[in-house]
């Protein structure tokens, strides 16, 4: 693999409106946090997409290993009673 000559990698999270969750928008390259913020602004907010930006060094993110997916996610899938749809709604209960 070619050496990445384009500075360090950062992950960008955008908030679309005040109070909303920050959602992963993508990544940028930058030499430091100020530059990462500027590059994120230029790359992801040019059409009024957001009100706030977070940038996080990519290597500060701990990711789960896809090989562990069985262990991590399967147990949730075979226990239908964990899903709200498992329970029938009492007739006439409109406020639930």
């Amino acid at each position, binding site marked *: 693999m070619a050496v990445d000559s*384009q*500075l360090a990698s950062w992950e960008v999270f955008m908030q679309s409106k005040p109070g909303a969750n920050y959602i992963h928008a993508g990544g*940028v*390259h*930058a*030499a430091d946090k*100020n*530059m990462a913020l*500027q*590059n994120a602004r*230029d*790359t992801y907010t*040019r059409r009024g997409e957001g009100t706030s930006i977070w940038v996080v060094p990519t290597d500060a993110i701990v990711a789960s290993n896809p090989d562990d997916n069985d262990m991590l996610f399967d147990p949730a899938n075979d226990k239908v009673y964990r899903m709200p749809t498992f329970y029938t709604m009492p007739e006439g209960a409109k406020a639930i």
Partner: protein
Amino acid sequence: MNTITKQQALYKYSLRLGDNALIHSYRLSEWCSNAPILEEDLALTNFALDMIGRAQAILGYAGQLGDMEKTADDLAYRRGEREYYNNLIIEMPNGDFANTIARLLFVSVYEFYFFSELQNSSDPTLAAIAAKTLKEVKYHMAHARDWVLRLGDGTDESRSRMQAAVSALWMYTGELFETDEAAAILQDANIAVDMPPLKEKWNAIVRQILADAAIAIPADEYMQTGSSKGVHTEHLGHILSEMQYLQRTYPEAIW
């Protein structure tokens, strides 16, 4: 005794502001697909879009002030080189990245103070355009400043390129603060910006940034001049020949 009317002065003053935005936009758009990294490519072309918006607004206004009513497009595509009044530094070729950044620093610091003052102009259109432009220019200035510090205080190569760029462009900075007859007439009417205080502010901040970046400040010796009379370097003609080719060859051509 003035040789031009106030209206003619306002026309020329507006042309200069519009031409600076238009030609700087053209130069920055030349970086599209050529910048050192993708993010910088987006940043520079993003600035170019800011400037084309400003050019449209100001040239549109200028078009209502001339002898014949014209659109912003008429003024952009159907004026000769000698009728363009952009500052010489604006039309200089991009050179390397450091050169483009040095120009962006010189021009954006100038524009920051210029539009800060123009907000208070007694001409409501120019004041409104100035207020909108100021937000964009603040960002251009922060971006240019960061890169000058980074390159000046970076490797031996980046410092030598930044120094070469500052040294080469310095003689084009004096012209930014020139006052011609049009500006003098408009200043009496509280429309135009007073230049000497602007030059002082510009000098203070630019010298501070260059000092922080460990870049030597060139001596204020010979300064280039000419654009307020429509006298340009060889470079503007090449820009216009490419930019105006289509409208000159197929007049009235539209999308």
